[in-house]
């Protein structure tokens, strides 16, 4: 089981959007994926085209209570951030053990940065979602100053909702690119289809299959795969990211 932590510096960056689509990309590649939301107020179901009134089952709820969207198991654990035994619990549940093609994506709100720091050392990979905006950039020194060298070394970055028609956005993206170098694994263009899909209660892939943001976030999912592999054994055995299999029925 690979654990991927999606987190960010500032609320509204689109962490949940990226976490949801990372899960979809890996699922289409053949993995058995669970997405865990630790947010008190959760928008995760909306990215799967589910009703806003839906409450996700607990991580500990029985299988018959599971919510599956495109074959992805959606779970919630709102007390995870205060749970000192969260990592041992993941271990007890088998999520930290080696297993074929199983992935847990943990969606961590930006406000829970201490929780993110705590679980990143136990993860296979982690992705920090940024906006190319000056207020986000202004937080970088504080975050990097607080993070351990190990955490920084293990962190990859993605720029979300990038408006390349705006000069300041392009300059801010260039600054991030210069700063983090190859740790920047992709950028997702600003795309009105993303909120429109939520408003239509449809997954983005169904509402706007040619969405620029969808293509970008899929590329980021594909870029995460090497971090999940172990030497001598490809992580994804059943699928091919270049030609994803059809999603499993919701």
């Amino acid at each position, binding site marked *: 089981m690979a654990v991927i932590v999606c987190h960010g510096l500032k609320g509204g960056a689109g962490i949940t959007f990226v976490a949801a689509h990372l899960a979809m990309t890996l699922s289409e590649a053949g993995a058995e994926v669970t997405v865990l939301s630790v947010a008190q107020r959760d928008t995760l179901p909306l990215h799967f085209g589910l009703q806003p009134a839906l409450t996700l089952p607990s991580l500990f709820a029985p299988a018959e209570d599971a919510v599956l969207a495109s074959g992805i198991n959606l779970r919630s654990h709102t007390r995870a951030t205060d749970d000192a035994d969260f990592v041992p619990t993941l271990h007890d549940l088998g999520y930290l053990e080696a297993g074929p093609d199983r992935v847990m994506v943990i969606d961590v709100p930006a406000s829970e940065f201490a929780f993110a720091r705590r679980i990143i050392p136990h993860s296979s990979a982690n992705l920090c979602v940024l906006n190319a905006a000056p207020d986000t950039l*202004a937080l970088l020194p504080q975050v990097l100053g607080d993070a351990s060298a190990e955490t920084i070394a293990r962190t990859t970055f993605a720029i979300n909702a990038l408006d390349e028609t705006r000069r300041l956005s392009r300059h801010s993206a260039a600054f991030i690119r210069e700063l983090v170098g190859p740790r920047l694994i992709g950028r997702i263009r600003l795309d009105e289809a993303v909120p429109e899909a939520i408003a239509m209660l449809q997954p983005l892939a169904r509402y706007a299959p040619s*969405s620029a943001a969808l293509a970008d976030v899929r*590329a980021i999912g594909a870029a995460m795969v090497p971090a999940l592999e172990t030497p001598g054994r490809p992580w994804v055995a059943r699928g091919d990211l270049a030609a994803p299999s059809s999603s499993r029925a919701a």
Partner: protein
Amino acid sequence: MRIDARHLLDRLGKNDFAYKEFEDRFTELELWPILEALLRDPRLQAIDQVETAAPEPVVSETVETHAPEPLSALFSRYGRGPAAPTDVAAERRGAQAQDVRAMLRHLSDLGSRGEI
């Protein structure tokens, strides 16, 4: 997406609009003050002093893949920048005694290639 935009994309044989043709005359711009302030913050050097974790993710095709440049090199472009953080960083910085306009020139190059 509006139907007229959809029809236009169909005629062009594209799935989406790309804004790669937008160009900036970076050489005529000054660095945004917030970027300059950030470059002076020694805490940003932390990201320059750690090695990338292995295995390294593959960079997606949509992202520029130029060779990474130490952040310390950016600091070096300021004549009155902070003291060199480490001897190692100084070595990596090499002989690049540049000023902030060198960064702007680099950004301009990226802009002219449509990469930012």
